């Protein structure tokens, strides 16, 4: 108890008002739970309101939407259902007193609160990797942004971050920002990719051709120089082991450097209460209800693992809400035994990690390297799924039926040649 801080009571507190959190809150409310949604931004939607390009919602809404449209649909359902939510609410701390007694301490424009709940759904998303994290050295100058920062400036505030741009990373986010800069009249001088292949989906790689943007594969940006503002960046070629090749350096003149070097699940508030983390996803170890190693704490969306489709993020939110319902009703998520899921050949990461075998489940996974004409196999149960192409850029999602896996001790997932 925290004397002097107003106390609120809920069945579930959802942390994060992006697609995972909104879908979770909507589902929890539909299931009859008393729910509070918290988000630290001034508006709901997470990063979606700034993702103004189309390509969202084909699975979840069976319609192609832009990010803001996807967010608006979920927000509308949230409001129609009367879900209680607070924006500009910053979570200071989570405490776990017992399985059915948890407290979320948060501040908001109207003061600090302690929200008590039986279950927590953590959907705080991910953070972007920044320049120092990928070993870029040099001057501390203006004009270095992560892709998301540049996107917020352009597509929320209408401010152009720069005119001559170098982008680090050819994943979907980097390519989409290359297009935004090019459309708005900036010169995108290069997209620099460490790996020997582009990191994004084919539809986004096409952007480079649309705007005649040079792509440097097997290259990295190592240094940024300028007085006050970025003036030039140093690029170097790397060999197949990603080691820099001496003498291959060259400079590109630019006033802006955009870092799009991947996302990392935000899990600090979870590790603080002892949630076990999977080093390969960067997110928590979870069971098939997306419950973490701390009973009654669920996780969904990019805080669980980095997704490439918002549809899966929303799906995970709903699943976590169903988990919370079961947890509250039965005082825990039960299973006669847990089936371990392990990474086999060419699988870089996967979730969930423990399956009950009592319900159908989606496995989400990414491969380690691109391969054509492969099969996803789970030898223990003789499961085989043919895939014409598997690349690290694209998350694979596979449905396992309860009756397929029920009698297994352990499942090994591998992606191998036919």
């Amino acid at each position, binding site marked *: 108890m925290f004397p002097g801080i107003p106390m609120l009571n809920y069945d579930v507190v959802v942390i994060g008002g992006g697609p995972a959190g909104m879908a979770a809150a909507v589902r929890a409310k539909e299931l009859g739970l008393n729910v509070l949604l918290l988000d630290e931004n001034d508006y709901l939607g997470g990063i979606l309101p700034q993702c103004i390009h189309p390509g969202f919602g084909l699975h979840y809404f069976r319609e192609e939407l832009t990010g803001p449209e996807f967010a608006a649909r979920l927000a509308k359902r949230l409001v129609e259902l009367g879900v209680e939510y607070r924006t500009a609410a910053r979570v200071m701390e989570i405490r776990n007193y017992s399985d059915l007694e948890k407290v979320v301490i948060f501040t908001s424009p109207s003061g600090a609160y302690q929200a008590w709940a039986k279950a927590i759904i953590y959907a705080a998303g991910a953070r972007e990797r920044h320049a120092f994290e990928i070993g870029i050295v040099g001057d501390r100058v203006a004009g270095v942004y992560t892709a998301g920062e540049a996107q917020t400036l352009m*597509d929320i*505030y209408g401010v152009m971050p720069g005119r001559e741009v170098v982008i680090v990373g050819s994943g979907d986010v980097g390519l989409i920002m290359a297009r935004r800069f090019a*459309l708005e009249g900036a010169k995108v001088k290069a997209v620099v990719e460490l790996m020997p292949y582009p990191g994004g989906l*084919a539809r986004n790689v096409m952007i480079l051709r649309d705007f005649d943007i040079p792509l440097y594969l097997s290259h990295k940006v190592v240094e940024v120089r300028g007085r006050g503002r970025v003036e030039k960046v140093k690029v170097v070629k790397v060999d197949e082991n990603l080691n820099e090749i001496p003498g291959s350096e060259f400079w590109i003149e630019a006033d802006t450097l955009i870092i799009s070097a991947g996302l990392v699940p935000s899990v600090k508030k979870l590790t603080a209460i002892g949630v076990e983390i999977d080093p390969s996803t960067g997110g928590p170890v979870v069971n098939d209800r997306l419950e973490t190693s701390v009973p009654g704490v669920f996780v969904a969306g990019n805080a669980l693992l980095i997704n490439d489709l918002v549809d899966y993020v929303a799906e995970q939110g709903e699943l976590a809400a169903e988990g919370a319902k079961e947890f509250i009703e039965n005082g825990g998520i039960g299973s006669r035994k847990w089936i371990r899921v392990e990474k086999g050949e060419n699988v870089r990461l996967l979730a969930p990690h423990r399956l009950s075998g009592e319900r159908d489940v989606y496995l989400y996974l990414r491969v380690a390297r691109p391969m054509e004409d492969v099969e996803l196999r789970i030898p223990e149960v003789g499961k085989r799924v043919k895939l014409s192409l598997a690349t690290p850029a694209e998350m694979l999602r596979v449905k396992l039926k309860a009756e397929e896996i029920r009698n297994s001790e352990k499942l090994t997932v591998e992606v191998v040649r036919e």
Partner: protein
Amino acid sequence: MTKTYRFTCIVCPLGCSIEVRIEDGKVVGVTGHTCPRGKEWAVEEATNPKRVIMSVVPVEGGALPTVSVKTADPVPKELIPELMKFLMELKLEAPVEIGEVVAEWNGIKIVATRGA
């Protein structure tokens, strides 16, 4: 004059490598596709590429300083710079409803994708 275009098809996740050969402005050969939809897409991509375009437009009196917009239909690629110029001069006033047609350009509707 023969010109060959190579595309990675984006119609479905298969990602076929499709080649389209064009002679004197006419399609003379398409190879690499595995379905009719892919063939159709590649031919269109080689002869008349179009894109749905998105941007943001400043808005007075809204919760955020901009409203995001998209074209209701795909725009021929060579007209994109002209469209962007048009959008850069646009200014809106709140209230703007999501889905509202906020402007029209050469018969193409500009639709708000965020409210304000």
